[in-house]
């Protein structure tokens, strides 16, 4: 119960202090909106439905990775993160609480292009039972990548630089712009090591029916990625921040 009170209050504090701030809300809306418009202008004849999986993935990826990396690095530089480290709660609870806020922010980001698309196309054929857990798992794995970045960065600008270092190659290797079958053979193993590949494939399947891998396999692998990233992050925090 005590851990739950701490968890809930860390999450509430993060949402209030960071995610509900006007610049972040506007980022959460404007960024996905800009991506959507960009794609529509680039290929006016293209179907919004085929663009949707990519737009959702990008919105979640960009929203979550940078937010968690930046907020943690910011709190560390102001030493307020030390307060959480000194609380009588387990490191796992603290990490989960920090991730939870970012995941919620990622989900919010994901549904901006969906709501936008709903004005233009019929979304009744979309399998929401797949989209919702897929978005959740993309947000979770992306947030954990953000946490990995936060552990390596000392300054906020470093966190932002590291985030881009991961994000942009991921976008081009996950099958979002170029189908995995069209990628050079030597790059494909890298693609299969990226959680976003499986998230995008799930969204493709749920929205356009064009998935390559069985959904259950993608879900399983995403869960595996999430667990591995969580354990690595926890280990890194233990090693780097508790010296």
């Amino acid at each position, binding site marked *: *119960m005590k851990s739950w009170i701490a968890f*809930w*209050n860390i999450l509430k504090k993060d949402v209030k*202090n960071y995610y509900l701030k006007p610049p972040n809300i506007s980022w959460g809306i404007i960024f996905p909106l800009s991506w959507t418009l960009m794609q529509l202008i680039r290929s006016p004849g293209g179907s919004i439905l085929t663009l949707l999986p990519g737009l959702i993935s990008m919105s979640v990826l960009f929203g979550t990775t940078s937010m968690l990396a930046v907020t943690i690095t910011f709190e560390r530089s*102001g030493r307020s993160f*030390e307060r959480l480290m000194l609380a*009588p*709660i387990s490191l796992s609870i603290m990490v989960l609480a920090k991730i939870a806020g970012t995941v919620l922010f990622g989900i919010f980001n994901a549904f901006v292009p969906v709501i936008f698309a709903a004005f233009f196309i019929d979304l009744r054929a979309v399998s929401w039972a797949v989209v919702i857990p897929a978005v959740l798992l993309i947000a979770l794995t992306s947030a954990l990548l953000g946490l990995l970045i936060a552990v390596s960065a000392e300054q906020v600008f470093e966190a932002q630089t590291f985030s881009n270092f991961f994000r942009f190659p991921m976008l081009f290797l996950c099958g979002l712009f170029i189908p995995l079958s069209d990628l050079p053979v030597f790059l494909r193993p890298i693609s299969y090591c990226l959680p976003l590949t499986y998230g995008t494939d799930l969204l493709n399947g749920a929205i356009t029916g064009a998935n390559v891998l069985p959904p259950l396999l993608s879900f399983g692998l995403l869960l595996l990625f999430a667990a591995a990233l969580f354990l690595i992050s926890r280990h890194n925090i233990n090693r780097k921040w508790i010296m």
Partner: protein
Amino acid sequence: MVKVTSLTKKYGDFTAVNDISFEIRKGEIFGFLGPNGAGKTSTINMMIGLSRPTAGEITVGGIDVKEQIKRARAIMGIVPDESNLYNEMDGFENLCFCAALYGMRKQEREAKARLLLERFGLKGAGKRPFKAYSKGMRRKLTIAAALIHSPQVLFLDEPTTGIDVESSRQIREMIMGLKRQGVTIFLTTHYIEEAERLCDRVAFIADGQIVASGTVPELMESVAHDHTIRFVTDRNAEDLASELVAELQAGFAGSKVEVRVDHSLVMVSERRIPLLPVMEFFHDRGINVYEARELRPSLEDVFVELTGIESSVLKKDKERGGRR
């Protein structure tokens, strides 16, 4: 209440803390003094579980810090050398958030936050954002945050560094108040006079090793080789001329007497100086004595003698701390 045994911390080849041991009794204020780089922060970080000891044991309230850090932290209050609350939140929210980290329920944490704001004279600033607080107010709220869960042991790292005189005084009074309530306090400070005034026992650390520890009188005794008494009389320096000084030295074998520029007369002896014969000596010569006081070494003198470090080094550290 706190027991540190053979504690060592190494960073590669560098030994920051070298096999130190000490105990802090319940309800005691234990001062930990030393210049920057002496090993104070490394020690405190190991005690609160922010750093892993290379060797040694730490128990707080009988709980092994290495093995059961969560349980140990539940009875610890920690005030770092820099205020680490949330700038975006107001004073009341900060205290409530800190209480929540200890699993306190909403009603309980709000009541405790109000009580502490009042006790620290911050009631009127409770709704003001932390970033708008003065340095002294920030410090007081940080201490209040450490007390939100009524800890048994309080770690205070440089609590009065860089803040105004009035806030420092209030914080010192608060520390004494906590001691009266039975809270055990581990205090690190650059201010030797603060340690002298507040601490029951003190340890000096230099180059990662404890060079001396004990009660303030014990430490003073350890360097007080001579007994010195200062007399203030109704005569000036010229009247207490060399003839009188020679007579006094002859009358009290083994003592050295000198007249100071402030017209006082100082008598130094290896043995304790009996006051009555000295007073009679003055009385017989029609000299009135207004004050006779034994001069003891200050804790600063003890620090300099035992560590070989000039107290100016501490003062420079203190100034650097104040400018941070």
